[in-house]
């Protein structure tokens, strides 16, 4: 039972939203806190952006299309029921039965059941190898089929069909679009624009066959598709067919519930169906005879439906249809009517551009922009409001020169999430946003397909008076940069985060910058600062990595990935003794012990008898090695010895972000030195030093810093580079972004110059000499009370040190 009838006053209606698509999500967003919402999704996924489903064909994963993260629903009190199909509605009683047999109670129900792919009744259409293009499962099946497909056909030359065909061509499958009509996208385009679109698609590897009516799908012996026969009798061989001829409103539930249904669920201007308790929004709804199959009207409808539910008078007067073709290399935007008695056109057949404005009684009624979509937002807004255009040619010309500044506040900038210019500008002003990334995060403009991000950035630049995007603030609350804060530390001779905070306020408001301030103070003071654990992240207070359940992971130092039977035995004994739930070999050639309680940490460290691997810190993590010349028949250098030495020399120091390194004995690169922050590669007659490589979320081959003759020179350069990075990088800036920001040449100048290099190495030596080589020794002398326990617990006791660990 989901609803307790007495739990909430009637002022917050219980609303059941049926369908977890863009429409269902939009209704939830619009209802906000005004209602107790239950969202029933038939699919096993949270609402995702179906408009961009084509991206699933070209390697994107479904989570990238998810409209909101899981905790959004939790945070907004929206109860989400996944995999829940509503089987029946009793509208008079206000109940719903799920397919699984549960009963839901509601005051109002909003049907957002969307649509199914329309499958034409062609003989053979049920052959294996024929797919529709509607959900993630369809995309997965299509992608799987492309690996063996030699020729694909897309039936349907509308927006969706063209996007599917382009994705297939991108995947390297020869593809033809078969279209019944005499032009592509006939609902949105006029003849001349469509005539330009066909060759543009051909340039992208998509063959277009117009006026081809498919008569039969041909099948082979095993029922698999082998081709098509057209009504002309001509045949076309293929082994993969994607059907994208249109959609059909999902009205089964509505019809069975006794609602008036024509092509869609009939709704009035309030979006209410033939039963007062039920509303319908999106592709399943039919308003004034129109069933929309595109995204923009959904947001308009959802807003009105939410107001209706919340008891506010609102009318939906219909939407102007608009469409944007999401095919890389073909820019196409349309809105409103494509043809009319009065129209002006600016076209350049050679350049493949076509810009048209359609007018009705002196007002803008439609636009088609192909190949040159400059000013699209301005023209879309003109269509939306029916702007008076005394000189339509001038309007077209002006639009192509328009900047974001000239857009009216009501102009929709982000069509995926329905965000207007006014929303973006006021968010920038009221919340003092300084970077495009922030604006996208706050307003969600640009969080969908991303095509509007340049406009978002332009609006930000305008609001900031043309100033470049905000500098990276180490303390965003007080807008202080690393350089500004470093200057205060130096000139006033400060030695702690508290002193810095007292001097300028940094770290007092939200505290997020305190670890960064800690690093800054320690780096400038050469680790002779006054350490304050309150300014450190929990990992650096207990020297272990916090996990999602509040337990910790422990990674002992295993330099160069070289261990011994004795160490492995001790690790095994610790795992048994403390019943450690998970032992995992890491990507960095070490061993991770997971699921350890804070109170166990000191005793676990004691029994391991190995120093900290700093796997929890922004510090040098590990130096991976291959076996090199000690064993490998191809080895040119002693990777193990050099790697172990380098790790000893680099470990124990905090860095702006984590630093991963590797040493390999030849360019076969078995330990991936080319994609490490610091990578040493033995070559014939010497060593190469690579810096700024990465193989995480970003993949980047490191830049060659220098080639030297001896391993000692290589290690020296690695340390000089590390110190330059420690001094120059922003906090939480990895070496690859730092390198791209300051430039390889600047780094080489500092690191390779004999004098400057000596200074860097001297500062490094000073910092290293004051750094704690093994923070796990705090097990003998905790630096704060209850460092490894709670107020009412004690950590496992450890006796006095028996000797220096390793």
């Amino acid at each position, binding site marked *: 039972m989901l609803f307790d009838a007495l739990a909430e006053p009637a002022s917050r209606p219980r609303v059941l939203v049926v369908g977890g698509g863009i429409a269902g999500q939009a209704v939830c967003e619009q209802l906000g*806190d005004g209602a107790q919402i239950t969202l029933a999704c038939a699919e096993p996924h949270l609402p995702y952006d179906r408009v961009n489903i084509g991206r699933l064909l070209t390697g994107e994963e479904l989570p990238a299309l998810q409209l909101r993260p899981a*905790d959004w629903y*939790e*945070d*907004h009190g929206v109860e989400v029921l996944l995999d829940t199909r509503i089987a029946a509605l009793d509208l008079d009683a206000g109940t719903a039965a799920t397919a699984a047999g549960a009963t839901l109670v509601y005051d109002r129900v909003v049907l957002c059941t969307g649509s199914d792919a329309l499958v034409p009744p062609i003989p053979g259409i049920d052959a294996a190898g024929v797919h529709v293009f509607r959900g993630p499962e369809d995309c997965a099946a299509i992608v799987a089929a492309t690996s063996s497909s030699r020729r694909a056909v897309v039936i349907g030359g509308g927006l969706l069909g063209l996007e599917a065909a382009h994705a297939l061509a991108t995947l390297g499958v020869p593809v033809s679009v078969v279209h019944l009509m005499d032009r592509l996208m006939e609902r949105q385009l006029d003849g001349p624009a469509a005539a330009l679109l066909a060759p543009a698609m051909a340039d992208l590897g998509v063959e277009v066959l117009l006026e081809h009516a498919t008569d039969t799908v041909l099948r082979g012996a095993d029922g698999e598709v082998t081709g098509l026969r057209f009504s002309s009798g001509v045949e076309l061989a293929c082994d993969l067919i994607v059907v994208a001829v249109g959609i059909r409103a999902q009205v089964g539930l509505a019809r069975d519930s006794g609602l008036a249904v024509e092509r869609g669920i009939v709704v009035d201007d309030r979006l209410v169906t033939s039963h007062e308790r039920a509303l319908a929004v999106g592709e399943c709804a039919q308003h004034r005879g129109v069933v929309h199959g595109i995204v923009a009207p959904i947001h308009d409808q959802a807003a009105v439906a939410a107001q209706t539910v919340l008891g506010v008078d609102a009318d939906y007067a219909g939407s102007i249809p608009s469409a944007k073709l999401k095919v890389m290399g073909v820019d196409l935007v349309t809105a409103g009517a494509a043809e009319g008695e009065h129209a002006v056109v600016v076209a350049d057949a050679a350049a493949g551009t076509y810009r048209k404005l359609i007018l009705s009684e002196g007002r803008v009624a439609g636009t088609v922009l192909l190949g040159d979509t400059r000013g699209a937002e301005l023209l879309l807004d003109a269509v939306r409001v029916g702007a008076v255009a005394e000189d339509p040619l001038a309007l077209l010309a002006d639009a192509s020169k328009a900047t974001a500044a000239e857009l009216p506040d009501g102009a929709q900038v982000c069509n995926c999430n329905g965000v207007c210019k006014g929303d973006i500008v006021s968010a920038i002003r009221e919340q003092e946003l300084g970077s495009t990334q922030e604006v996208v995060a706050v307003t969600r403009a640009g969080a969908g397909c991303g095509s509007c991000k340049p406009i978002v950035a332009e609006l930000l630049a305008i609001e900031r008076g043309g100033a470049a995007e905000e500098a990276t603030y180490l303390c965003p609350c007080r807008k202080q940069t690393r350089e500004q804060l470093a200057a205060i530390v130096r000139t006033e001779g400060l030695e702690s985060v508290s002193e810095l905070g007292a001097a300028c306020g940094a*770290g*007092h*408001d*939200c*505290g*997020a910058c*305190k*670890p960064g301030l800690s690093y800054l103070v320690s780096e400038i003071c050469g680790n002779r600062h006054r350490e304050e*654990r*309150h*300014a450190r*992240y*929990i990992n650096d*207070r207990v020297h272990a990595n*916090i996990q*999602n*359940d*509040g337990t910790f992971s422990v990674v002992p130092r295993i330099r160069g990935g070289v261990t011994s039977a004795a160490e492995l035995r001790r690790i095994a004994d610790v795992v048994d003794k403390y019943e450690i739930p998970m032992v995992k070999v890491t990507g960095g050639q070490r061993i991770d012990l997971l699921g350890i309680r804070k109170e166990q940490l000191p005793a676990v460290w004691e029994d391991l008898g190995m120093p900290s691997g700093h796997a929890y810190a922004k510090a040098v993590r590990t130096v991976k090695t291959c076996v090199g010349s000690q064993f490998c028949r191809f080895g040119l250098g002693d990777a193990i010895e050099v790697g172990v030495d380098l790790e000893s020399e680099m470990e124990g120091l905090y860095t702006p972000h984590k630093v991963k390194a590797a040493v390999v004995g030849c360019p076969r690169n078995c330990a991936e030195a080319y994609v490490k922050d610091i990578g040493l590669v033995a070559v014939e007659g010497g060593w190469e030093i690579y810096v700024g490589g990465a193989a995480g979320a970003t993949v980047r081959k490191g830049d060659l810093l220098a080639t030297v003759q001896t391993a000692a020179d290589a290690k020296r350069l690695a340390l000089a580079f590390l110190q330059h990075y420690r001094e120059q990088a922003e906090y939480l800036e990895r070496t690859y972004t730092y390198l791209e920001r300051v430039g390889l040449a600047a780094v080489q100048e500092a690191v390779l110059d004999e004098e400057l290099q000596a200074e860097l190495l001297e500062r490094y030596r000073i910092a290293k000499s004051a750094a704690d080589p093994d923070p796990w020794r705090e097990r003998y002398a905790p630096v*704060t*009370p*209850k460092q490894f326990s*709670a*107020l*009412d617990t004690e950590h496992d006791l450890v006796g006095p040190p028996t000797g220096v660990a390793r």
Partner: protein
Amino acid sequence: MSETWTEVGYAADVPMLEGRSVAFDGGRIAIFRLRDGWAAIDHSCPHADGPLADGIVADSCVTCPLHGHRYDLRTGLRQGDEGSVRTYEVRERDGMLELRVPVAVAG
């Protein structure tokens, strides 16, 4: 029981601008030592049960170490979003920390 103060531990066990958790009233409470006194809220972050006593503390808020949700230590309200944790009354008496459920909440 909400009227009475319960002794839960030594004040000296909570360092300046840090938190420590303790069992109380059927759950765990995080107690923080601030520059201007004490604060106590639920230990478990409502988002994903993150241990709030392990969070970084600024003048009047704590940040959950797991996903960065931030709570005002005086009101319990999540900053920048909806949601909240419960707050408790906490005081120091003769070196001991004492907790009680605020009367309004307990009512």
